Structure formats: structure tokens, C-alpha cells
């Protein structure tokens, strides 16, 4: 994926660049606001990470211009400005997410991943229901009864697979393939780990993940 980073503090920019590159992305890094704005007008990226305080042209103005020209590229704003109002302002201007400096770099990576995935996915906008568990694929949220439960990406994927056909028993191998693909090297107990976590998070729901010994797992709604 191509990421465009606009950040004038060298130490920070360097670290962001390096971390994204380590994750296998291509990063273009620009320190001047005006130059960045010019580049954005003719280059397509998958994600823009934008600092607010910049020489030349500030981040908000760059963002505004992008959205005015119809660009839908996900933008993650980095702000060090003293008012929290900035965060709201950023979202109003069409930013997809923001982080206030100083931030945790793992958090930046996690959020960037979400934005990139959203970009690549083109996700369906439907609900999957099993018992009182509702999985909303459009905004990646899960509710158990009235409780909204936060799920990790893999847990969400696992639930999506199981809930797509309630009652069907999915084998461990099938789940492993669909969760991690063929590229990643994970142990067999990775599935058990995620099933365990998902079970814990669905506690109190009227649907349960049932283990069929030696066969696999199924999602069963109570009374079904």
C-alpha cells in the first residue's frame, strides 16, 4: 500500500516511515505543507497521515482542499495543538481518524491498518444475527443484547465466519485458512486462542460457540 506522510518533525517522520516500511508499505514523506498539497493533487495514495502544524500550509487546509477536490483517500490527522476542539474540527473537515501527540506508535499502526483495510475492503453493509448477537459488518461492531462488545479484527473475522452459517460445524483447518490465509505461519492452537477470546466476549449472549470434539466449532443460538 502507498502511504503519504506529511510531518515536519524529522525524528517523528523518520520513525513513522520506518515502521510503515517495516510493515511492508511504500511511504512518501514530505515536510512542507504546500509541497505536500501539490503532490496530493496529482498522486493517488491509499492513506495520508497528516500533521496539523506544518510550514507552508497547515494540515487542515490541505485536508480541506483534498476533500473539496473530491478525493476520498483516508486521512489520519496527527495534532499537537492545544485544544481538543482540533479533533472535532479535523473530523468535521473530513478526516477519518486522528491521534493527539504524543501518541503510541503501535496505536498509530493499528489505526492505519483499519483505514487501509477499509480502503481495500469495500465492505458489505449488512447485519448478521445469531441469538442476541448482532454483527454489523458496515461499522465492524458487535452487540450482545444491548451491550456493544469490542472485538479485535481476528475475533471479528472468526465470528463472521461462524455466524454466516449458524449451526454449521467449521473444522479447525478451515478456520485457520480463512483467518490467516496461507501466508502466515501460525500454530494450530491459534484458532483455540481466538475461539477462547471470542467465547469470553460473547459471555451472557443467547448464542454460544460449541466445540465438537475432533471436528470443529459451531455457533449455536440458544433454543434453536
Amino acid at each position: 500500500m502507498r502511504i503519504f506522510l506529511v510531518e515536519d518533525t524529522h525524528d517523528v517522520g523518520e520513525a513513522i516511515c520506518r515502521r510503515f516500511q517495516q510493515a511492508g508499505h511504500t511511504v512518501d514523506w514530505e515536510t512542507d505543507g504546500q509541497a505536500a498539497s501539490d503532490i496530493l493533487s496529482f498522486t493517488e495514495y491509499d492513506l495520508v497521515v497528516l500533521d496539523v502544524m506544518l510550514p507552508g500550509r497547515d494540515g487542515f487546509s490541505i485536508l480541506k482542499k483534498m476533500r473539496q477536490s473530491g478525493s476520498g483517500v483516508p486521512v489520519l490527522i496527527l495534532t499537537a495543538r492545544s485544544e481538543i476542539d482540533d479533533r472535532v474540527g479535523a473530523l468535521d473537515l473530513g478526516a477519518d481518524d486522528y491521534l493527539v501527540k504524543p501518541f503510541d506508535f503501535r496505536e498509530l499502526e493499528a489505526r492505519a491498518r483499519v483505514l487501509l483495510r477499509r480502503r481495500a475492503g469495500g465492505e458489505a453493509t449488512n447485519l448478521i444475527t445469531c441469538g442476541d448477537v448482532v454483527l454489523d459488518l458496515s461499522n465492524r461492531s458487535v452487540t450482545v443484547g444491548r451491550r456493544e462488545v469490542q472485538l479485535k479484527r481476528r475475533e471479528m473475522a472468526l465470528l463472521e465466519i461462524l455466524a454466516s452459517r449458524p449451526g454449521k460445524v467449521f473444522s479447525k483447518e478451515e478456520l485457520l485458512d480463512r483467518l490467516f490465509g496461507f501466508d502466515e505461519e501460525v500454530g494450530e492452537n491459534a484458532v483455540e486462542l481466538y475461539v477462547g477470546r471470542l467465547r469470553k466476549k460473547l459471555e451472557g449472549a443467547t448464542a454460544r460457540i460449541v466445540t465438537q470434539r475432533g471436528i470443529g466449532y459451531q455457533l449455536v443460538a440458544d433454543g434453536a
Partner: protein
Amino acid sequence: MALLLGLGAAALITAAWFYARTAADEAYDRLLLGAAFQMSENLTVQDGVIKFDLPASAFELLGLADSDRIFYRVVTPDGKTLTGYNDLDTGVDLTAHQSQPVIGNSTYRGVDLRHVTVSRVLTQKSGVVWAHVIVAQTLESRRALAAELTTRATILVAIMCLLALAGSAIAVRYSLHPVDRLGRVLARREPQDLTPLDLDVPRELTPFVDSINRFITRLSERMTLMQRYIADSAHQIRTPLTALNAQVSLIDDEKLAPADRRHMERVRRRASELSRFTNQLLNHAMVIHRFDSVQLAPVKLNDVARKAFRAAVPMTVDPDLVVSFEASPEELMVTGDELSLREAIVNIIDNALRHGAKGRLDVKVGRDGDNGFVEVSDDGPGIPPEEWGNVVKRFYSSRSEDQVSGLGFAIAAEVALALNGRIGFREKTEERPFAIHIALPLIEGGQA
């Protein structure tokens, strides 16, 4: 005030009594004198013998004082009593001529008397001689008159005193009314309100109000400077801190010696602590500053809590932690400032994530009577009740130097207070986990 009036009244009554007595004396003395002169007119010399004819008119005159007894004595020049009470003695030298009537007090037969002695010159063959007429009168009438005059004066003084008391009470109340109003205005003020007083007061109070206003202005300027200073310095700290975190994150732990790795881990932890603290400091300054200027508005509690929940729970949160959010089924509206309220809730959740939750953290919005609340419960050890009062203080740390609770709860508590709400704690029991909630009064009706 009453003492002063009492003293004044006593002095006035004494003076009134004194004047009443003098007036009564003067009035009755005239009668007495008139009677004495009439009697002395009736002293005649016939054939060398002094004759006395008691005039009825003199007694009529003295009869005006009807309750008094009258004594008289007519003394011839040779000292003999011609008629009357011969033992009526006034202590006046009767051998000498008195050119003026002599008036005095004396006691006769155990009764207090007022007497007058008048000399009458008679011409005899032997030459000019003088006889004396003594008339005395008991004191009842004059005492009665004096008492009556004094009583009337006393009543007048008393009425005047009462009027003065009532008048001055009203005057004091009236003149202090603006001070009272000023006091109420000051007491009603929001603690953050540092605008000068705008109040109509009498001219006498203007310097007082002016100095209060000067004080408020000075205080406000200092506060503004202080807040700007905090905000500026926090802002200045952010950039290098971000850079520090950035550089630290680039260090490859794999290539470090085990001891260095340990040190590195500490550097990371401290750096993130510092980041968190800087954010709190800045947010705290922001929250305080906001209540000075922001107009409070109706806020949907579910929305604010959900936003806070999303902001507070990082994506990198421990995957084994069960984190959930439960909105209230009804829309709850509270009066507040969305940003500050969100910061307050974020801080409570953040604290639970850092110091509480081991396997579970639940955020719940609900209603309790006239209050809407956001409750954050976790399955951690909780905060013991004796610490509840302390953790909402700024920079209070209950544990060792490792854990500085910082400003999180202080921000939450200050926001709650500014919005007429409060922060509450629920003790951990066997059945229920430890919980912290922020409760705010619902807008009338409670529903949107």
C-alpha cells in the same frame, strides 16, 4: 443603639423631672406668695395695736391646691404670734426686716412643707416696725403636678425612643440593603466566573465594588496567564515527546543485551507515562478554561459516552480483555459541555484500563431517578473506600512512586462538579465488580 437611646432617655427624663419640679414649684410658690401678700395687706395698726383680719380670698387662692393643707402664722414685731400656729417655725430670722419674701422648705409636725415669709412694715408710735406673715403649704399638689408633668414627658420620650429605634432599624436595613444584595450576587457567582461585577449600588458603595472588581480583574488576568502558560508549555513539550517516543520505538529490542532491553523497557514505560501525563495536564487546563467561556447546552449522554468509550479504548488494547459498552435504552439528555464531559469519561475509562481491569471492563449508561449516569466497572481490585476522597485530588498517588494517578480523576471530578453532578464509587463485592460513575442531573423530563 438601644443602650445609647436608653441613656439618652434616662437623661431626658431626669431633666424633665427636674424642670417639672421647678415649674410646679414656681406655679405654687406664686400662689403661696400671693396668699402671703394678701394676708400681710390685712395687717393693720389700730390705736397702736396690731390687728389682723384673715382674708378669705387668700384661702381661696390657696384652695386651688385642693389636696394640700395650709398653715400660717402671723408674728408681731415683738416676736409674738398674733394668730395661727405659733410653733410654725421656718428658720427665718423674724427679728430682722426681710426686704424680699423668703421661700424655703421645712418640716412641720412630720410633714414636708413649702413656706414663704413676708415682712410687712407697720408704723407705730415707737417708729417703724415689721411684722411677719408665714404661710406654709404641704407639697402634695406640686408633687402631683411635677409627677404628672414628668409622666407626660416620659411618655413623650418613650414614644420618641421607639420611633427612633424603629426609624434607625429601618434606616440601617435600607442603607445596608445594597450590601446585602452585593453579598448575594457574590455568593451566587459560579466559581469560574471572573468577570467584573455589574451592579447598581449607592454612591457610598462604589469604591467598595470598584476594589472588588479590581481584585477580580487581577485574579482573572493571573488565571489567564497561568492557563496560557500551562497550555503553551504542554504544547511545547508535545513535539519533543512525540519525537522521543518515535525514536524509542525504532530501537530494535532484539539487538540489545538483556540488561539493556530491561532499561529500554523502562525508558518506554516512562516515556508513555510522560505522554499520558502531558495529555492530562493539557486537557485539565483546557477543561478549566472551557467552563469560563463555553455556553452549556443539552447533550445526549449515550452519544458522549460512546464517543468517550471509542476514544479511551485503544485499538492496541490487550486482546484478552473483554471490553463492552451498553447504552441506555432511552435517550438521556443532560446539560453540559460535550468535550469536557467526554474528557471526564475518557479519563475514568483510561484509569480503569490502566489500573483496574484484569479481564473485563464494562461501560454502561443508565438512569437513576433524576440523574443520568455513566458507569465504568472493572474486575480489578478497585479502590478502597478510604481512598475515594483522595483519588479525586490532583496528583494524588495512593501507591508507590511507580504509579502516579495524575489528573485523571481530578478532571472527571471537576467536570462533574462544574455540571452540577458528581463522581461516585461502588465498592467491590462478591457479586458486583468495582465501579466508578459520573452522575449528572437530567434535563426536565429526562427525555429528548
